[in-house]
């Protein structure tokens, strides 16, 4: 017979054990900001409970079946001079047992599965904040129709309130995924003349304040990997003051018009006037809505609404920190910062324009 595999098996087992330990240590550390394993909302906890049920069943089955396999491998390895083993062809009793047992185990998984399907597929039982989510290549648009807010990439929600998302896409399929708060749902394109509009719902109630990463989960073109998102859960008071700020010049509030007092204050501010001049002459206005410009109230432009860029923590769909230097770099070379993105400058901006724009965008929080 061949060399006994026992030694190699043991060596492998040691290695596998070490790896498993490493992985486990890695898994328990808190460095995962986009994980499904630390749920922070009602719906993700439901899903996590269900998943853990199947994981434990899987562990039991894994240990028993792999155990039986490995036992058989050691116990029945041939030795010199072995007689021919008994030529069994089957055993009906045993075969029935091992058909029935998995069926029973599956029933233990199927019942909570169906229960959870029912719970998670229900329309939001108690929606308190309505948000429309629109996927674009490669950024996310959020509209709060009742609160009058339009923003991009960073979804801001109050803690402890049920958020009800209605989601679609402006171009290709995407999938909005916030692992800790909401799980994911595909979004489907709705064009001007689309008759059967497929709007997917998703709801969640965040249970702790914080910043949560997420990203697009359906291949959507060259920058699919960089179609990030962030959900910022604020206390109720913080959320309300955020809404108050965002409502200024929002397309959903009086078509983007602002109070005369605010408008005249802006017009007296050279940061605003110089920035706005660059915004218009540099061509930004072609694709972006911005407070104080003639198109402040426009919806469905090609690029994200920039009215309150200064209040966002990231740019480029959760790609870069929203710092003056990053913003300047982005304006200098958007294709270099995010290759293939639909942001194409009609002409290169001058350094003077860039610094005027950076100051202008950061001023409007």
């Amino acid at each position, binding site marked *: 017979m061949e060399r006994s595999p026992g030694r190699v098996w043991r060596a492998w087992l040691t290695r596998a054990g070490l790896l498993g330990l490493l*992985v486990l240590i890695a898994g328990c550390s808190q460095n995962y900001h986009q994980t499904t394993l630390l749920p922070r909302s009602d719906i993700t906890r439901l899903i996590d409970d269900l998943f853990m049920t199947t994981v434990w069943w899987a562990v039991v089955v894994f240990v028993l079946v792999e155990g039986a*396999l490995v036992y058989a491998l050691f116990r029945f390895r041939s030795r010199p001079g072995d007689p021919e083993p008994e030529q069994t062809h089957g055993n009906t009793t045993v075969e029935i047992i091992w058909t029935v047992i998995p069926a029973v185990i599956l029933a233990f998984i199927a019942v909570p599965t169906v229960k959870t399907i029912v719970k998670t597929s229900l329309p939001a039982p108690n929606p308190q904040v309505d948000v429309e989510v629109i996927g674009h290549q490669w950024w996310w648009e959020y509209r709060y129709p009742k609160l009058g807010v339009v923003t991009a990439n960073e979804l801001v929600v109050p803690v402890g309130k049920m958020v009800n998302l209605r989601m679609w896409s402006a171009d290709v399929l995407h999938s909005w995924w916030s692992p800790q708060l909401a799980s994911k749902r595909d979004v*489907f394109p709705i064009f001007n003349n689309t008759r059967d509009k497929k709007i997917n719902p998703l709801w969640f109630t965040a249970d702790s304040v914080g910043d949560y990463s997420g990203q697009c989960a359906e291949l*959507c073109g060259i920058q699919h990997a960089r179609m990030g998102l962030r959900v910022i859960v604020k206390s109720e008071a913080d959320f309300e003051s955020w809404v108050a700020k965002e409502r200024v010049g929002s397309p959903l509030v009086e078509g983007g018009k602002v109070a005369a007092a605010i408008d005249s204050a802006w017009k007296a501010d050279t940061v605003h006037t110089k920035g706005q001049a660059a915004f218009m002459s540099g061509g930004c206005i072609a694709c972006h809505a911005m407070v104080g410009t003639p198109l402040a109230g426009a919806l469905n432009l090609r690029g994200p609404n920039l009215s309150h860029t200064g209040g966002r923590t990231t740019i480029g769909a959760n790609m870069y920190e929203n710092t003056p230097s990053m913003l300047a770099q982005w304006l200098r070379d958007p294709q270099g910062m995010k290759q293939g993105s639909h942001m194409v400058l009609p002409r290169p901006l001058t350094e003077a324009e860039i610094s005027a724009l950076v100051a202008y965008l950061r001023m409007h929080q």
Partner: protein
Amino acid sequence: MATSVLEHKAPAIPHHYPKTGFWSWITTVDHKRIGILYGATAFIFFLIGGIEAVIMRLQLIGPNGKLVDPDTFNALFTMHGTTMIFLGVMPLSAFFFNFFIPLQIGARDVVFPRLNAFSYWVFLLGAIFINVSFLVGAPPDGGWFGYANLTSARMIPSTAAAPAPGLNIDFWVIGLQILGIASIAAALNFFVTIINLRAPGMTLLRMPMFVWMSFIVQILLLLAFPVITVALVFLMMDRNFGTSFFMPDGGGDPVMWQHLFWIFGHPEVYILILPAFGIASEVLPVFSRKPLFGYTAMVFSGVFIAFVGFGVWSHHMFATGMGPFADTFFSLATMVIAIPTGVKIFNWIGTLWGGSLRFTTAMLFAVGMVALFIVGGLSGVMHASPPADLQQTDTYFIVAHFHYVLFGGSIFGLAAGAYYWWPKIFGRLLDEKLGKAHFWLTFIGMNLTFFPMHYLGLHGMPRRVYTYPEGLGFEFLNQVETVGAFVIVLAFLLFIVNIIKTWMGPANAPADPWHGATLEWSIPSPPQEFNFPNLPRVGSSVPQWDAWRAAGGKLPEPVRVSGDDIHMPNPSYWPLMAAIGLTILMSSLMLIRQWDYWYAITLFGTAWLFFSVYRWAFEPTGH
């Protein structure tokens, strides 16, 4: 084995058909030679697919990787998937179908030898066609699943950044159409071969398990491929003629593509795995010295898997929001498949139980397949649960799952088959020491590469991303995976060394080096052109063991005979000519948006195809 539409009198083999050398391979209709052509071709494309995987792993070794461009990365994972499925695992299975279905059922060839050659040539030309895309700088980049409307041409108005659609997806669409024709032709051939060319006495329930699983695969191929053919036609029309099959701006629905694709795509999964199940079911009994446990249960669990496999496609689409009823139905149907799969696993363990196990390389790979498939099966049950799938779909968890079933399952099964059948194919035994090193490195590398992917997926890493940012905790596990990928590369290099070493060694394999149970071991290694001088008579599912017992435990080495009185089909170059005509016809569809007179080439290809088919139909077959 008559295949001519009109059977002429059988002339002797025309002298311009050589028996050896280049032209003999071009004109061959011998199932064994065609099998070897399939194997060699698939091996090359398997290497290409592997190189694509390694480049991806290098890109992902750290955050913000810059080794390749985002669009190149998209092309890499698209072509890695497409290559491994259609140009790797499927033709490697066809390698074994070709070589061993006739040998295991006691036939002299497949039922339509020239159709068999045609299948191979169409496959080869389709495989080259789809890879030519790299050379012209337009590799497919829409994923192996090609979801509309990303793959529809008028997705968004063109801009400087996204100019008019390139030929990338067209290569994928037309390439898959060509490969589909090859698959259906081959499937029809093996389907009829298994039904009609079994040796006297080989009833359906005496067929070797590899033949049974292959039989099921052929039926799946026949029923699943037409669906993707239709889907690809629609997509082609959307791209070229302004239709709206999958475009919402004209009333179409991108979800329709997903339904059509997965009605094909899910049976395709079983098309990839069942041959490996069949091989394991051959190898485990032989090296346990005991027949397959629960033969009938194995047969019917395979049939059941295939049947239910047609009713679970929407479990790929839970995230599309189908509603609780569809979710529940497809979830439960998917879980039900776990039962027959479990029966198979238990029967394999039952086969080992009480046996006398010899750990040859083939046996190690077969046992490895069982061990790894269990992992893939269990993670499969996890995302059969729609709520859990909402977190797992389109993440690395799924990548982990299907590499456990396709690498751990299919590739390990095929490797077991390679070590088991190599002596029969080439008359040379692969080196067992190198083989065992190959196994252990593959086993370790495989687990290092794919096991951490479970964690990455659960920790939020999506699939098909060219890079990931720092700070999400993805760095360490990605490094481990890249190291694992290189362990697999090393293992594969050992396999190549083994092949070269064996090639240069003496051709001294006996007819039956393993004490095999099935008919292929009753004839010399490698077999003669006609396989069996006389059709064998079969009295059980282990005919060679019957013979061995009847002979009192000692069988003489079978001798080679002249076989002059055995008529074998004539070689023919018309299958190749027909395949070329078909490829010209299909390639012309690439030019629709490029050249106003594209249909001139279509007509030319059609004429060429028809001419070749008529010459083929009226050609004397030597029978």
